[in-house]
């Protein structure tokens, strides 16, 4: 057939309806998979909470302190170095970025206020959580995924041992506890970074800097940051465990779960932080 042959006329209305129908079907499939994912996370969270309560209040159920301690070391202690490094840089960056604007208003010493509030309320918990999602979240997903592939999860169930109690619960508790601890460390290191920069570059002495920080901060700033850290820790660990438990397809599946954990954790962390900030703003916290 020649290229110049007349093409059959397409009814534009039919084409538009078909395209709309296909878009609805694809949208519906995406929505279904998202609902399935959120439902799965919710169910895992519920199951984990039930196991934590059982282990705390039922005499025959053990919390498994050695497993919890080893996860705390793995999740938290090994992340200390990288979190100190990142947060000290953030303190330096904040101080240097704010200085010109504040100086224009004759309020240079207020660098301490802004760095302190930003670190305690936002950047301390959020950046510690983001670092932890890449450091510990990915590692949890890969480890559990590899266990699924090696039939270890099946072996646990075959011995009447619940994988949520043995694998998910200690990892969630460890991530929550350690992220709260790491957030305190982040706050301190961030303020130290800002203080040293102010001392060396902006000519604000440490005593003056700490005085302004102390005046600007209230306990509420510290507590809201820690509440956020606890929730962030729970989200990272639940997403990582869920992705790990749902691995299929061998090494490729493990790699996919690791990437998905980091990406989804960061999106969920920032979205949750946004919700927290809006709530704190509404309730003047």
């Amino acid at each position, binding site marked *: 057939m020649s290229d110049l042959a007349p093409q059959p006329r397409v009814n534009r209305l039919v084409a538009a309806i078909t395209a709309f129908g296909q878009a609805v079907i694809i949208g519906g499939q995406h929505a279904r998979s998202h609902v399935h994912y959120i439902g799965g996370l919710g169910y895992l969270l519920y199951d984990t909470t039930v196991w934590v309560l059982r282990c705390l209040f039922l005499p025959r159920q053990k919390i498994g302190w050695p497993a919890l301690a080893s996860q705390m070391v793995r999740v938290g202690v090994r992340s200390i170095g990288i979190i100190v490094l990142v947060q000290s840089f953030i303190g330096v960056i904040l101080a240097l970025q704010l200085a010109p604007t504040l100086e224009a208003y004759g309020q240079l010493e207020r660098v301490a206020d802004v760095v302190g509030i930003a670190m305690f309320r936002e950047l301390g918990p959020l950046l510690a959580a983001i670092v932890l999602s890449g450091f510990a979240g990915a590692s949890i997903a890969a480890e559990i995924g590899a266990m699924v592939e*090696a*039939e270890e999860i*099946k072996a646990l169930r075959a*011995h009447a041992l619940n994988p949520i109690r043995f694998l998910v619960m200690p990892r969630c508790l460890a991530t929550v506890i350690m992220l709260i601890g790491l957030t305190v460390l982040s706050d301190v290191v961030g303020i130290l970074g800002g203080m040293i920069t102010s001392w060396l570059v902006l000519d604000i002495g440490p005593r003056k800097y700490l005085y302004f920080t102390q005046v600007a901060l209230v306990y509420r700033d510290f507590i809201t940051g820690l509440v956020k850290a606890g929730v962030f820790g729970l989200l990272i660990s639940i997403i990582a465990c869920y992705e790990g438990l749902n691995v299929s397809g061998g090494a490729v599946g493990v790699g996919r779960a690791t990437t998905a954990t980091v990406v989804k954790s960061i999106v969920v962390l920032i979205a949750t932080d946004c919700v927290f900030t809006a709530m704190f703003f509404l309730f003047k916290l």
Partner: protein
Amino acid sequence: MTNVAVDVPNNAVIAVRDLVMSFAGPDGRLVHVLDGVSFEVYAGETLVIMGGSGCGKSTLLNCLIGELRPTDGHIYYRIKGMNQPVDLRAMNEKGLNELRKRFGILFQSGALFNSMTVAENIALPLQEHSYVDSSIIDIVVTLKLQQVHMLEHRDKMPAQLSGGQKKRAGLARATALDPEILYYDEPSAGLDPVTSAAIDQLMMDLSKKLQVTSVVVTHEMDSAFRIADRMVMLDRGKVLKIGRREEFESLRDTSPERLANDDERLIHQFLCGDPEGPLTKADGTSEYEKLIIAGE
């Protein structure tokens, strides 16, 4: 556990009745991986379940151990201390866990917990289910390791063990709670012939010493003929033949021309590992491969 009045022979430990397991295929069509499977496993015997790739034997094992819930049919267990057989399909998770404590499983890869030593792997089910003192658990672990000739490896991590050693350690863990039934998933897979024969010998010794009922899923025929009392041949989700080992040996040793029907010729081809026969099409691909390629 749910008790039910059913027709299960008195000496049967497991009775599978009209078992159906269906999955949705890639095109949304329902595919019956198991289609009306029925058989019994008698106390103290070793039953070998065999069949080609994709015939449904792994699905059957997963149903037997409660890893998969069958679509239809029943799996009855007659456990010591219970008057009536219990139906696995009617059990809740708690009942299923009680049942799981009565059987041990040796997985294809050993499935040892990689973060624990060999001894810790064996101790874990005891610590969680037996509520005995740690010194007694230590003695039991030593005994179980002696049974599988692995005592000198007790403090090694699974990554430091060979394939055969992993299976031995997995077998020690499977027997930790003194089970009444032992399941084996491809016990000889990935092992050299000598190690494979040694594992078979170990399985037979344990079966005799511990007086357990054994169910073995395999397609390694040398191993199957060494250990089996009775055999079940699966084909495309259905039971093709159940019989004593001698009956299968006779089928294997008979020339295909003298066999009565296609089913027997198919079993003969499988047992002998012939590349040509009713299992294989003219293009060299087997019926199983065609099903797998078609996504079934």
